């Protein structure tokens, strides 16, 4: 068996290289015999958590990502503490300094980077070090016990983290910086100034615009001398002025290098058998020093090592966070701007808050934030998606969470929370739980945290907080959501790409779609199958066939599953209007089937709770007898149309809101949607039907009807945007149809109208539904056409027409 395996050698036992191996083992566990050479005498550890180790918040063991057992378990030969000094590319063999050799079929270079040592006299004295590996941390920790004065040269991310750590170890620390702004590559002068002030308050000292000309001392360092002739005392000097890709080995064996080892979009070097990832790499002219891009590279590289050969690395946009406890700062993109950009700036020195968003042509170019970074991830997303922000420009600065975010006690700054405070109100996850999981289990992404802790995995309202915790725990290396997110793990295609493929290639079944897009799993998963089922039905009404087995149980059983496995039954009450016969029928059903709970819903209907599955059919039959149909209270579909009594009874009513609500419900019921869809009609601006928090709301006024869209009263309260005003009921219905169809065709599955409109912009909706009469008519026609196939009561079909009978009876009863 083993003879047939190819040999893969990894040079560099660091985060990028080992991550590539992990990604490879996930997709092709048995393809290679793998050998790893690492110059350091450890397994793979989380280099970005060295700062907390120095600060005494974590131990070396805490930050191990892959211990030696991991290599054993995966059949990987690990040569630690052995540096590769030569490669025979023709003979495909690597040579270590101690004489160890290994042959390869594929070679992966992940030699990382070296700290930049400034070329001044004395830079080789004792106790002049960099901040790069565990050994450096050991030297610093030892020095802090013996000596008093530390000088950190470099006021960038790494330098400040080192300085903070040394200060916490009790040293008197001075940070020397060449520029007049700290972290000038990540911060503008305002934010840099606030950062400096806050670090000074903590006890750090700064020498700005100071150019080091010599490190003083005989054998051991005694001080640092500057260009202006001044000197300061030092027992320890840490150089943190930057890194440079470690290309010595690659250069020596003739692999093309510029600043780093040059690779193409498949992470291949000029030698086709040799791949490279990580900080040693130069891709499209750029070298990266943060973990997120390195992991993206690792994933692409693994795809090619596995001979799958379709993945490409196209570069990364990065964002930065500082890992100094209690200091919140964030930056991304071009946050300085120039004469062609516009800045939105908010500054409140007393609160210690500064935010700046740089905009060009209504698109975010960059942002820098200090003190309140809760919306950093959102701005970063808008930046990466190149979203047109003209519709939200007036409240962009106030962030995404400015209105009624519920579920986490109103907290919006993770830094201010103690470890015991609850972050995720759905799953009861505290801040400390999340931090422990991130460090102990080596998590890097929001999805990792969701999988391991369940935080932010239910309603998602605490996502911003979790991202902040992730960012502040991992510092600059936090990996935000990728630019184009795959629909699920079964494919690399995004929702948009899948939707386009289904629409343009006339794919009318889940199987066809999976074949066409080369799905990675045989029959998908619980995430993609319902999405695909929805898409084929939405794009090809009448032609695509519904697949009940790809529907969530609620839609398969046409009832809502409850925590104990029973179901709830909600008959449709058109516009919330009922009568004595209907109420009597419900009361009879409740008695006849011993329904434990009868409850009035928020959508003006009546819910029968605690119904056993085998009772569903007879209950539906009884309800059908008085004319009730399914209320779709279980579906990604039209739920309710809430109304007030309007001009028929109310002394303030301006139009007949009740009748209009019933008409809207009669047109719209039965249609499948990307997510649940709620409507309301209020008879006057007092808005008793709460139309301005619905997906589609009508507010009647004396002169006609205001149409409102994209409201939501759930996790995040969002008031509707005003779409337009129309004059007749017929217009209301046509605009409603067009809006619903636009949503059905363009939103992603499980995306409600509120986030959909925030994603595509209200202008986009107006353009298709309001401004262009032809487009509106076509949308409305397509909606009415698709309604022909679905406006059949699913309860009647099952209760009396024999559809899907197996769903409602046991296979067998064994006594």
């Amino acid at each position: 068996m083993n003879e047939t395996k190819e040999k893969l050698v990894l040079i560099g036992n660091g985060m990028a290289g080992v991550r590539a191996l992990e990604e490879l083992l996930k997709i092709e566990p048995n393809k290679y015999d793998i050998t790893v050479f690492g110059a350091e005498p450890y397994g793979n550890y989380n280099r970005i958590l060295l700062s907390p180790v120095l600060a005494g918040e974590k131990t070396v063991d805490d930050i191990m990502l892959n211990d030696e057992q991991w290599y054993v378990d995966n059949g990987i030969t690990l040569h630690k503490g052995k540096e590769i000094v030569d490669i025979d590319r023709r003979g495909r063999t690597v040579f270590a300094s101690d004489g160890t050799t290994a042959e390869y079929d594929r070679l992966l270079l992940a030699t990382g980077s070296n700290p930049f040592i400034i070329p001044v006299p004395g830079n080789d004295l004792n106790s002049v070090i960099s901040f790069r590996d565990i050994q450096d941390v050991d030297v610093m920790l030892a020095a802090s016990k013996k000596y008093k004065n530390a000088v950190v040269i470099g006021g960038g991310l790494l330098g400040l983290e080192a300085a903070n750590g040394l200060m916490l170890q009790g040293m008197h620390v001075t940070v020397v910086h060449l520029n007049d702004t700290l972290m000038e590559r990540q911060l503008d002068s305002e934010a840099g100034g606030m950062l400096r002030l806050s670090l000074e308050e903590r006890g750090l000292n700064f020498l700005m615009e100071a150019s080091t000309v010599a490190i003083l001392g005989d054998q051991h360092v005694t001080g640092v001398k500057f260009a202006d002739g001044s000197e300061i005392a030092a027992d320890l000097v840490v150089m943190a002025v930057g890194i440079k890709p470690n290309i010595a080995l690659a250069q020596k064996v003739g692999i093309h290098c510029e600043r780093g080892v040059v690779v193409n979009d498949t992470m291949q070097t000029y030698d086709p058998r040799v791949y490279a990832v990580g900080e040693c790499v130069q891709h499209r002219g750029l070298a990266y020093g943060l973990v997120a891009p390195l992991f993206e590279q690792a994933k692409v590289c693994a795809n090619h090592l596995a001979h799958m050969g379709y993945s490409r690395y196209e570069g990364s946009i990065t964002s930065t966070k500082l890992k100094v406890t209690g200091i919140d700062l964030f930056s991304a993109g071009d946050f300085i701007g120039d004469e062609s950009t516009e800045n939105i700036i908010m500054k409140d020195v007393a609160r210690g808050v500064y935010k700046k968003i740089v905009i060009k042509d209504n698109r975010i170019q960059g942002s820098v934030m200090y003190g309140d970074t809760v919306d950093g991830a959102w701005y970063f997303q808008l930046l990466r998606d190149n979203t047109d922000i003209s519709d939200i420009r007036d409240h962009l600065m106030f962030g995404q969470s400015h209105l009624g975010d519920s579920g986490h006690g109103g907290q919006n700054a993770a830094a201010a929370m103690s470890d015991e405070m609850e972050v995720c109100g759905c799953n009861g996850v505290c801040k400390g739980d999340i931090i422990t999981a991130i460090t102990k289990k080596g998590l890097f992404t929001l999805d990792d945290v969701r999988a391991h802790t369940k935080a932010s995995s239910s309603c998602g309202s605490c996502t911003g907080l979790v991202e902040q915790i992730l960012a502040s725990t991992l510092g600059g290396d936090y990996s935000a959501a990728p630019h184009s997110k795959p629909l699920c793990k079964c494919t690399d295609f995004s929702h948009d790409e899948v939707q386009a493929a289904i629409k343009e290639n006339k794919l009318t079944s889940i199987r066809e779609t999976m074949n066409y897009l080369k799905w990675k799993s045989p029959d998908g998963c619980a995430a993609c199958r319902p999405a695909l089922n929805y898409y084929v039905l939405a794009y090809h009404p009448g032609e695509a066939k519904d697949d009940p087995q790809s529907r969530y149980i609620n839609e398969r059983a046409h009832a809502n599953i409850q925590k104990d496995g029973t179901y709830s039954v909600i008959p449709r009450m058109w516009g919330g209007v009922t009568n004595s016969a209907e109420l009597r029928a419900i009361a009879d059903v409740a008695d006849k089937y011993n329904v434990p709970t009868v409850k009035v819903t928020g959508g003006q209907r009546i819910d029968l709770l605690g119904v056993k599955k085998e009772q569903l059919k007879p209950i539906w039959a009884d309800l059908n007898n008085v004319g009730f149909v399914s209320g779709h209270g279980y579906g990604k579909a039209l739920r309710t149309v809430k109304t007030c009594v309007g001009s028929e009874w109310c002394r303030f009513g301006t139009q007949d809101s009740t009748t209009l609500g019933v008409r809207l419900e009669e047109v719209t019921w039965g249609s499948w949607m990307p997510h649940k869809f709620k409507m309301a009609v209020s008879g006057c601006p007092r808005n008793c039907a709460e139309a301005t928090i619905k997906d589609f709301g009508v507010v009647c006024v004396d002169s006609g009807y205001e149409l409102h869209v994209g409201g939501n009263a759930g996790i995040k309260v969002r008031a509707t945007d005003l779409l337009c005003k129309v004059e007749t009921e017929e217009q209301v219905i046509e605009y409603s149809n067009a809006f619903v169809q636009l949503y059905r065709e363009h939103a992603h599955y499980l995306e409600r109208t509120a986030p959909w409109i925030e994603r595509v912009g209200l202008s986009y909706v107006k353009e298709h539904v309001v401004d262009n009469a032809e487009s509106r008519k076509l949308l409305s026609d397509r909606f009415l056409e698709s309604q022909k196939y679905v406006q059949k009561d699913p309860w009647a079909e099952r209760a009396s027409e024999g559809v899907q009978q197996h769903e409602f009876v046991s296979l067998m009863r064994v006594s």
Partner: protein
Amino acid sequence: MFFLSDKLKTKTLNTVTKEKFMSQKEWIEVGLIEDIPSLGARVVETSNGNVGVFRTAEDEVFALRDSCPHKGGPLSQGIVHGKRVTCPLHNWVLELDSGAVIAPDEGCVASYPVKIENGKVFLNLQAN
């Protein structure tokens, strides 16, 4: 070493026990394979609670106790994909053959032997 031999002993014991049950031939015919929807499940009610009988796209049939180890959700109502099922309550994913929960969640539910003869499904209620 003691640990190892101890482990071996348990293993032998299990095998004997299983053989004993097999010899009792407690196979119950529960229906035809067509009675179970492909990529779906049906329930067999027993005095000790429900058993979900699952059918994959490849027409393999598996049986699990119909109660997710997380919060007791009815697994038979979940979505079947590959040789796995996703619980309808909180999306835990379980292996149909072993009843093991997929990481990072942890847990296991009892699985039962199933055999198919001439299109008929037989279930053995002695858990694996």
